[in-house]
């Protein structure tokens, strides 16, 4: 005993489809209507398609020199993504690096202590005892990570880490060589998860030239490299 939709005519359906396509809103204030939400959805679908289709260009020594600034290259193995960051601001020992999508990377003497705009961000983390232990290449430290959860709040993850020296290694990064010493950080969170971070510290400058650092349970590791221009 089903009832058919009232058939006003094809005109009714045509009018509806037209309305969806040309749905528009305007005015001088904030528009809270359902239609405005529909329009926003339409725009997001378009932009997402553009992002998917954009092909990243390959990075070479020439490209880095052409840009003329130091870059931080970040690879996210779990998501198969690579990003390139430019230095945005410096506050004492803290550097804030920004990429073209507006994501932020906060580095304190080579240690990642925060991200923003990456998704599942590391909001903040401890640093003092960790930096000391990395420089020493031995001993232990306690780390606290404050990580965004999906509900707009943060979770605290505590980990105990031990450090060991893995010897010397020469890195070749886009044609430039760097002599480094390698430090391994082995960590275990209070809930039993284990991960390892590695730091390649340049012997000449003390800079953390390359590193693999665990960021948050959802992201996993960032693999960072500092790309200098040939002149710097």
């Amino acid at each position, binding site marked *: 005993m089903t009832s058919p939709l009232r058939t006003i005519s094809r005109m009714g359906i045509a009018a509806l489809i037209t309305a*969806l396509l040309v749905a528009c809103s*305007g005015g*001088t204030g904030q528009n809270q209507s359902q*239609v405005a939400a529909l329009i926003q959805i339409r725009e997001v679908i378009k932009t997402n398609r553009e992002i998917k289709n954009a092909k990243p*260009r390959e990075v070479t020594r020439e490209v880095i020199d052409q840009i*003329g*600034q130091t870059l931080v290259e970040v690879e996210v193995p779990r998501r198969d993504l690579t990003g390139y960051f430019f230095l945005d601001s410096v*506050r004492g020992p803290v550097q804030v690096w920004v990429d073209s999508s507006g994501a932020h990377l906060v580095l304190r003497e080579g240690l990642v202590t925060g991200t923003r705009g990456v998704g599942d961000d590391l909001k903040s983390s401890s640093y003092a005892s960790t930096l000391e232990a990395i420089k020493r290449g031995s001993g232990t430290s306690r780390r606290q990570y*404050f990580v965004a959860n999906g509900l707009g*709040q943060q979770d605290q993850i505590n980990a105990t880490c031990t450090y060991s020296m893995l010897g010397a290694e020469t890195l070749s990064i886009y044609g430039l060589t760097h002599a480094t010493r390698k430090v391994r950080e082995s960590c275990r969170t209070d809930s039993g998860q284990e991960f390892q971070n590695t730091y390649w510290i340049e012997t000449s400058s003390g800079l953390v030239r390359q590193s693999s650092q665990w960021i948050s349970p959802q992201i996993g590791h960032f693999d960072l490299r500092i790309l200098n221009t040939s002149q710097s």
Partner: protein
Amino acid sequence: MAKQGIMTALILAGALGPAAAFAQGLNLNRPLRFPETPSTPSLNFYGLPGLVDLPSGEAMPDGQLGVTVSHFAGQTRTTLTFQALPRVTAAFRYIGLQDINIGGFETYRDRSFDVRFQLLREGDYVPAVSVGLQDFAGTGIYAAEYVAATKNFDRPFGLSGRVKVTAGLGWGRLAGVGDIGAPFGSDRPGFDPADNGGSPATDQWFRGPAAPFAGIEWLVNDRLGIKAEYSTDAYVLETRQGVFERDSRLNFGIEYQYSDRLRLGGYWLYGSEIGVSAQVQFNPRRPATPKVLSGPRPIIERPSRASNPQAWSTDWAASQASQGVIRDAMAPELAEQGIRLIALSASASQAELRIQNNRYRNTSVAVGRAARTMARVLPASVETFRITTMQNDLPQGTVVIQRAALERLEFEPDSSGQLLARTRFESAQPDLPGASILPDTHPKFNWSIGPYLSPSYFDPDEPIRADAGIAAEFRYRFAPGWLVAGEVRARALGNIENGRLSNSVLPRVRTDGVLYAAETDFPIENLYIAHQWKPSENTFARVTAGYLESFFGGVSAELLWKPNTSRLALGVEANYARQRDFDQLFGFQDYDVLTGHVSAYYELGDDYLVQVDAGRYLAGDHGATFTLTREFTNGWRVGGFFTLTDVSSEEFGEGSFDKGISLTIPVDWLLGRPSNRTTTTSIRPVRRDGGARLSVPGRLYEQVRDGQQNALVESWSRVWE
């Protein structure tokens, strides 16, 4: 202090090439395959964790939502399940039984509610144990109670994967065969399709015979599962009506995890029928699209007094013109971040900014961004920042932050917790004396034209009816606190007018939808004028007049008491309502009524809102509505409500009393872009005339609370975003 932006890079590069090379950035918008979600049990044909027709002792992860559609032998069950608390699972179900011919219906449709409480969590040696009520309110065709225990075994006997073993005891429908006696008495009333239903049948829970049931689920790997169960459901009614033949007590099934949210299954039931099911589970914690928000501008630290004493001078505060200069410097920077500057008042040591958050789900993000802009623009002598958030010209609350804390704490561990320890929350004053107000704040005019869909649920003949067409609406704010708004619709097509006419004995305040839909294709949905203001720092007031909703027009006045730091709010609302003509133009019918409520709102713990409204409803009945909502900081809300009035269940009609569930989905959860829009839907098993409240636009509580202390502290971890 080098500050090299992306624009600089573009210029140096000489072309867009290298920068465009990094266009994708580190935007992690692609969802992972099988992200690390907590493992969740599969659902049964009733939509709860279980086997095929049998329940298990398990629960879903806290806050999880599930939608299950199952079908066999002409019986379709559609269930919405919510893990309301870590141990409480609640479900609302809609069923269709084809060709059953009972109660005067060839196809019998019904709604039911389930609840399950987990008594014991699974441990190393202890199984998970739950007690549950199936179809406990309503006409009870599926009524059953049970106690079930489930234990997981990893790689038993060398098999891959995991095996879940479930055993339990069932009453009611789950004691159809193989019962072992009646432990709590044998007095159990049977199913009566003529009963109005709707009330919890407490006199029958755990009464009558009880029968043991059992089953096994083998999760071969993370995609494939196999189920086998010994079901005690005799399907007495269905087999008697010839819907299907029950040849066996055994059910079998194979399930396949198609994607990380969707699981599909095929089954062989009762030795004679093929069944299918589709189940979707998702959790507000894991967004459909991961949320990404572009990072903020850095905080500029003030120079030290010793190195630059001029920067610290307070001469600027003496001149009125400087207020305008500062305001004009801040307004565009705030606007670019989706924040509207409404007023600014700066003195030598303190500044108050009044803003409206137009972009962010959580006001805490807007407060953090506003504080950064204040730190960048205001002269060094200003130490204390007061930020008042506004919503539609109502000051919600004031946050007081020390500038030195902003400068020092941004990159420290637990930066948000540390900042919160140095932040104060105060009730917002109605006015900001001496403030510099942006000249073009009013008037503001918005309009939109687009499609609309208006559904109507659970008519016995048709589970979903809908009307669709084009809607045009406008909102005109001509002065602070004043609004004129309206919506007109043009119905293109729909079938609501073909529904059944009301048989209600009460004034037909809500059940004449069919007559309204049939009378006109061009209704004025609403057209009204409203004024809202803040009489004192803890009170809010509103007056609205006009055509307030589809069926009623009139006058509404409301007063709300909500201090910023209080979890409790109290409100009172009084309305005069008159029923509108069926043509939904400017005329009225004769029926009019004075309605009103006294309301108490309480923000319980971190996640819950309890609301009680007591008063007089549209049909002239007196009573109270109780609402409990689980709210997530990311905007998701799931809630249930019921209303008890002096209308008897016979007068009310089917369902006995008004009840339902509400679901609010934040738009940015779906899109991944910042947005503070939500979409809300209420589902009532039955829409009758008892316990009906006037639907007034712009009630105060929701306008006020997202800028007050509770909401801000809840989401304070986002303040540095």
